[in-house]
C-alpha cells in the first residue's frame, strides 16, 4: 500500500520541546497514497477515513481560533512544555555500576554494529562486506578484547568461546583488538539473525541473547570459556602496526613547528625521459589524513558508483574482496597500547610513471592525456602482472564471475559504468564517467571545467571532506591548495611513480598536561 508523502497528507507533530505543528498537504496524493492516520482508522473500523477530519478531530478540544492560527502560522506558539526543575537523586553514585571492572572479571560491553546497527541492515550485502573500522572484520561479529586480556585468558583471534551473562548464553569467536580497554569484551549486536533474507541469515552470533535492560550497554560479570574450536574470521587488513613512516606520516604540532618539512622526503632523481606535458587537464586528488575518521562511507559510495560486486565471506577469507578504495588502519606504538591510530584511504594513485602500464603484455592499462591511468577491461587477458607490479596494491582481479553471482537487482547497477567479467582486472578510475560527463557539459556550454564540477564518489560521500579531487592545471583549484601545504607527501615516491594522489600528513596536538594519551 503506497504511503502518502509528507506533502500529500494531514498530520500533526511536536518538536523536541513540545511545540505543536500541524502538517498540511500541498497536493492531493499523486499515486493514491494513504497517510498512517487513515490506515489506522480503516483498521479501527472506519471504512472511508478522511485525513483532514481525523486531525481536526484530534484538536477539537482547542478553540477554532487556535486551529486557524495553527494552520496559518504552521506552529503554535508557546505550546512547548515548560522547563522542569531537576536535581540529581540522592545516593546515585552508589547505584551506578563501577567505573572500572574489578580485575580478573570481565565486563560485557554491548555496542551496535557500526554498519548493521541493531541488525536492520543485515540483508545488505554491501554493509556485510564493508570492513568494520579498526578491526576490518567482514561478514561476522566477534567478541573484541584487548591483547592483555586475551593473553590472560590464553585466547587468540579466531578461537570460539562460550559466553554467559546473567540473562543468557551464546558462542562467539574472539578477536584481539589493539587499543581495546582491558578486562572488557565488546559484543556487537545486530548479527545472528535467523530470518533476514538470503544474505543476512545466519551471519555472525546473536549478542542480544546476552543482553538485558538491567545492563543495556554494559554488564559486569561476563563468563567466558574457551571451547578449543576455531572459527575463520574474514578481515581485509592483516598487518596494522606501523613499521616505518613510508606510508603514513604524522607528528605532533610542536615537532611540525620546529621542522615544517618533516613529511617531505628527498625526491628520486629526474628521469632521463623528457616529462610529458599535460596540456588540457591534469586530474589529481588530495587526501587529508587529519580529516579521515575511517567511516568507510567512501568505500560504499565507490561500490555503488562503480558497480563493484560483493564476493562473499569465503572469498574475503581468501583476501579477494573487490573494493577499489580501502581504508587502511594503522597503529603507531605498541600492539598492546597503541599511541595513535591512523586512517588512510588508498585508491589507485594514478601514477604518472605507472609501473602497471609497463608490464601489461596486451596494453590493457594505458595513460590518457589527462593523467589518468585507465583500464581497458575488454583488452585485459588476465595475466595479473599489473597487480604484482603495483607497489600500492590497489588493483583488484575478478577471480570468479563476481558480478554475475552478485545477488543484485539487474536494474540497480550504475548504467554509466561497465560491469566487469570474470578474468579482468579493475581499479579506481577517478570516477572517469563523472569526468566525461563534466567534460561533455563543459564542451556543450563552451567553457572550461570548473573546479568543483567533478566530485568523485568517494569525495562526495566523505563527511569530513578529507578527499578533494581537481585539476592541477587550474592554479586556484582546491586540490592545488591542499597540495601546496608542507604536510603534503606522496607514498612510495622513491620508486619514481610520480603519484597524482597525495596525502596531507597528520598532526597531533596533545595537551602536555594530560601526557601522552
Amino acid at each position, binding site marked *: 500500500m503506497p504511503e502518502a508523502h509528507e506533502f500529500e497528507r494531514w498530520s500533526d507533530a511536536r518538536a523536541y520541546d513540545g511545540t505543536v505543528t500541524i502538517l498540511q498537504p500541498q497536493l492531493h496524493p499523486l499515486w493514491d497514497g494513504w497517510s498512517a492516520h487513515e490506515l489506522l482508522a480503516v483498521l479501527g473500523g472506519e471504512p472511508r477515513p478522511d485525513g483532514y477530519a481525523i486531525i481536526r478531530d484530534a484538536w477539537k478540544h482547542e478553540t477554532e481560533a487556535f486551529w486557524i492560527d495553527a494552520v496559518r502560522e504552521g506552529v503554535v506558539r508557546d505550546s512547548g512544555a515548560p522547563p522542569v526543575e531537576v536535581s540529581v537523586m540522592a545516593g546515585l553514585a552508589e547505584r551506578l555500576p563501577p567505573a572500572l571492572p574489578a580485575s580478573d572479571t570481565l565486563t560485557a560491553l554491548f555496542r551496535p554494529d557500526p554498519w548493521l546497527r541493531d541488525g536492520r541492515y543485515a540483508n545488505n550485502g554491501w554493509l556485510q562486506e564493508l570492513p568494520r573500522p579498526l578491526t576490518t572484520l567482514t561478514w561476522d561479529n566477534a567478541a573484541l578484547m584487548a591483547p592483555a586480556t586475551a593473553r590472560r585468558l590464553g585466547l587468540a583471534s579466531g578461537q570460539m568461546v562460550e559466553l554467559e551473562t546473567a540473562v543468557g548464553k551464546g558462542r562467539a569467536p574472539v578477536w584481539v583488538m589493539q587499543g581495546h580497554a582491558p578486562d572488557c569484551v565488546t559484543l556487537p549486536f545486530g548479527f545472528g539473525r535467523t530470518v533476514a533474507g538470503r544474505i543476512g541469515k545466519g551471519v555472525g552470533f546473536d549478542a542480544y541473547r546476552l543482553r538485558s535492560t538491567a545492563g543495556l550497554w554494559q554488564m559486569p560479570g561476563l563468563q567466558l570459556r574457551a571451547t578449543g574450536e576455531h572459527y575463520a574470521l574474514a578481515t581485509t587488513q592483516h598487518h596494522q602496526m606501523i613499521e616505518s613512516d613510508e606510508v603514513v606520516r604524522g607528528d605532533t604540532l610542536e615537532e611540525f613547528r620546529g621542522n615544517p618539512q618533516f613529511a617531505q622526503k628527498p625526491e628520486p632523481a629526474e628521469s632521463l625521459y623528457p616529462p610529458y606535458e599535460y596540456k588540457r587537464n591534469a586530474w589529481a586528488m588530495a587526501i587529508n589524513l587529519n580529516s579521515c575518521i575511517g567511516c568507510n562511507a567512501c568505500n560504499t559510495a565507490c561500490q555503488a558508483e562503480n558497480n563493484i560486486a560483493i564476493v562473499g565471506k569465503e572469498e574475503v577469507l581468501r583476501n579477494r574482496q573487490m573494493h577499489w578504495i580501502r581504508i587502511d588502519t594503522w597503529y603507531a606504538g605498541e600492539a598492546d597500547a597503541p599511541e595513535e591510530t591512523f586512517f588512510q584511504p588508498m585508491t589507485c594513485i594514478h601514477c604518472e610513471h605507472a*609501473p602497471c602500464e609497463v608490464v601489461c603484455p596486451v596494453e590493457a592499462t594505458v595513460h590518457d592525456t589527462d593523467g589518468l591511468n585507465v583500464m581497458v577491461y575488454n583488452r585485459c587477458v588476465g595475466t595479473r602482472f599489473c597487480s604484482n607490479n603495483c607497489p600500492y*596494491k590497489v588493483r583488484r582481479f575478478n577471480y570468479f564471475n563476481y558480478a554475475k553471482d552478485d545477488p543484485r537487482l539487474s536494474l540497480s547497477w550504475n548504467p554509466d559504468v561497465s560491469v566487469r567479467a570474470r578474468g579482468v582486472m579493475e581499479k579506481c578510475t577517478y570516477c572517469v564517467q563523472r569526468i566525461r560527463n563534466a567534460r561533455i557539459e563543459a564542451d556543450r556550454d563552451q567553457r572550461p571545467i570548473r573546479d568543483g564540477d567533478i566530485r568523485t564518489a568517494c569525495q562526495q560521500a566523505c563527511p569530513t571532506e578529507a578527499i578533494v579531487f581537481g585539476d592541477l592545471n587550474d592554479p586556484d583549484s582546491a586540490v592545488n591548495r591542499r597540495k601546496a601545504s608542507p604536510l603534503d607527501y606522496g607514498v612510495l615516491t622513491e620508486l619514481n611513480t610520480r603519484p597524482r594522489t597525495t596525502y596531507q600528513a597528520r598532526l597531533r596536538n596533545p595537551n602536555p598536561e594530560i601526557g601522552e594519551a
Partner: protein
Amino acid sequence: MPAATLTEHVSDIVLERKTPLWWWVGFGFSASLLLVFVGALGWLFFRGVGVWGITWPVAWGFAIGNYVWWVGMASGGTIISALFFLTRSDWRSATNRIAESMTVFCVACAGIMPIIHLGRWWYAYWLFPYPNTMGTWPQFRSPLYWDFAAILVYVVASVLFWYVGLIPDMATLRDRDTNRWQQIFYGILALGWQGSSRHWREYRATYPILAALMAPLVCSVHSIVGLDFAGGLTPGWHETQFPPYFVFGAVLSGFAVVLMLVIPIRRAYGLQHVITERHLDILARLMLTTSLLITYAYGLEVFMPFYRGEAHELASVMSNLSGTYAPWYWAKIVLNTVIPQLLWFRWVRFSRPLLFIISAGVVIGMWIERYVIVVSSLHRNYAPSSWFVFTPTFWDWATLAGSMGLFLTGFFLLLRFIPMVSMFEMRELAARRKPEPAE
C-alpha cells in the same frame, strides 16, 4: 657394443610386438594423472582462475612456478643435444635422444601453464603480434610479451630439432620393420630418407645450424624467464642477477631430470653398455657444476641486500630466511646446494640409486625454489596493509600433478614408439672410434 648389434638392440625394443609389463604399469599411472590434469583444467575453465589459491597480493602462484620449473627442465635436454653437439662432445650421443624427447614434453607442459593461468585464456592469442581490426598490437615493453615470444620460439625450435634428429632413425625402423602398418607409420615420419650421401650432406649442413640456434636459446629463454620477475619492481624480484640465476637453475634441473630418466631407462631396456657409467659420471659432474653455480647465485641473493642496505630488499631476504616461507627456503637450499655436494665423491657418482635420489631431490628443490621466488616476494611487499600468506588449494596440486601426468604419458608413448638411443649417431661414433673389421 658393435654398431650393428646396437642398432638391432635399440630398434628391436621399438619394433617388438610385446610391450613389457612395466610399460603398461607406467603408462597406466601416467594416463590416470593425465586424466586428473584434464579434470583440473576442465574445472578451471568452467569456474575461473579463482579455484587456485592465488589472491591479492599474491596474484601468481603455482602456475607460474610450474611454468618456470617445466621450462627449466626442458633446458637440460637442449643443452645436451645442442650445446654439447657444438662442442663435439662424444658422450652426448648416448643420451641425447632421451634428453630431446624430455625437452619436447617439458616444453609442452611449460607452454600450457602460462595460458591456463590467464583470467581470460581464450584471448591468449592476443599476445601474438598480428594485424587486427582493433588496430592493437601487444605491448612490446612488457617482459611477459618477451616471454611469450621466447617460449613460442623455444617450442617450435625444440620440436624441429628433435624431429630432425629423429629422421635417420625413423628410416632405420622403416627399413627394418616387417609389419606393413608400422612400415607406413615410420615411413611417413622418415620423410623419404634414403641415407644417400646427398641426404647426409644436407643433413650435416642442417643439423649444426639448428644446434647453433638452439644452444643460445637455453640462455636467452631462461634469461627472459628471469626477466619476467626482474622486470617488476617487487622487492625480491627486482634483481639484476635473475637472468643468469634462472639459467643456472634451469640447467641444474635439466641435468637432474635427464639423470632421473636415463637411469631407469638404461636398466629397463638393457642399455648399460650404451649409456655407460661414464655417461652417468659426466652428467653427475655437470649437475655438481651447476649446483655450485646456483649456490653462488643464492649466496649473492642474500649478500646483495645486506650490502646495499635497502630496507625493502632486506625485509624480503629476512622474510625468506626466517619468515612464513622459511621452511621452504631452507628446504631448497638443502636440496639444491647441500645434498648435490655429495657428488664430489666418486662412489656417489657411480651409485645409481644415490644418483637417482639426489637428482629427484634437485628436481623437487628446483620446484620449491620457483615457488618461493613467486610467492614469498609477493606476500610481503611495499604495501604492508596487503600482506597475506598464499595457501595452495587442492586444484593447485591437482594441476601440478596432472602436468606431470601429461609429461609422463607423452614420454611413455615416446619410449614405446621411438628409439631411445640415437642409433645413427652411435654408429658414427663406433665407426670413428674402432673401425669395424671387414665382414
